[in-house]
């Protein structure tokens, strides 16, 4: 393998900052969740790259990545359920317009 570790880390950093830009600059709540998914994937790339380049015999990196998969799936499920529930009541998914507590 002739690919240095830093390439993977720079790729993960770039993916993370793109996800960060998506979360902070989009209006639609679902688009914000898409940005969060990108950030979680960047973290996963980091974990697996470090697993491969440091100690491939011990599976810590891969186990951590699998737990991140599970957590991301749980978060997306609950998040989207919340968004659909809010849409049913307020008829909007734009994050700015969901700003009143229950009256």
């Amino acid at each position, binding site marked *: *393998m*002739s*690919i*240095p*570790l*830093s*390439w993977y*880390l*720079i*790729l993960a*950093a770039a*993916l*993370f*900052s*793109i*996800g*960060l*830009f998506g*979360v*902070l*600059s*989009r*209006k*639609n709540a*679902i*688009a914000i*969740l*898409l940005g969060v*998914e*990108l950030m979680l*994937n960047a973290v996963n*790339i980091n974990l*697996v790259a470090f*697993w*491969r*380049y440091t100690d*491939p*015999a*011990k*599976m810590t990196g*891969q*186990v951590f*990545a699998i*737990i991140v*998969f599970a957590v*991301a799936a*749980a*978060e*997306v*499920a*609950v998040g*989207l*359920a*919340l968004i*659909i*529930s809010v849409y*049913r009541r307020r008829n909007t*998914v*734009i994050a*700015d317009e969901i700003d009143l507590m229950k009256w």
Partner: protein
Amino acid sequence: MTADQIIFLLCAMLILGSALMVVITRKLIHAALWLVATLFGVAILYAILQAGFLAVVQVVVYIGAIAVLFIFAVMLTRREMLDKGVQTRSTWWLPAILGVLILTGLVFIIIGQPAFGRSAGEIPASVDTLRNLGAALVSPDAYVLPFEVASILLLAALVGAVYVASGNKK
């Protein structure tokens, strides 16, 4: 430029290009499908890193479940006016500057560490990563506790999502 590096660069272009399209494109359904392309690129990256099981699980969990969930959510919360007009806030340049700053900072840190410049060692043929992964997930002196906690988390998320999305009045 060895073949490995060319494949890595193509994969990186796929990932970063699709990620950029996810956060920029106007129609939300296109954003969800560009996310699918990004996730597929990440799966290819896992295969390059010789984590084959993770690559297949990425396709099954992320593309097969999470991306489909996103597409369903987009279709269920659609109104006619929602896809027209600008999709980013008016102060979008602030997150852009922030993103570029964070990226530059991280790249400086990464390049500054000489230890990150090394190439990967070979995995010895005696190491069966798939079996080791299975053993690590259920062995008491490895990671069985986080594994069980993650399954309880998934159960809680399952019950919560069904309850929240069912829309029953109390």
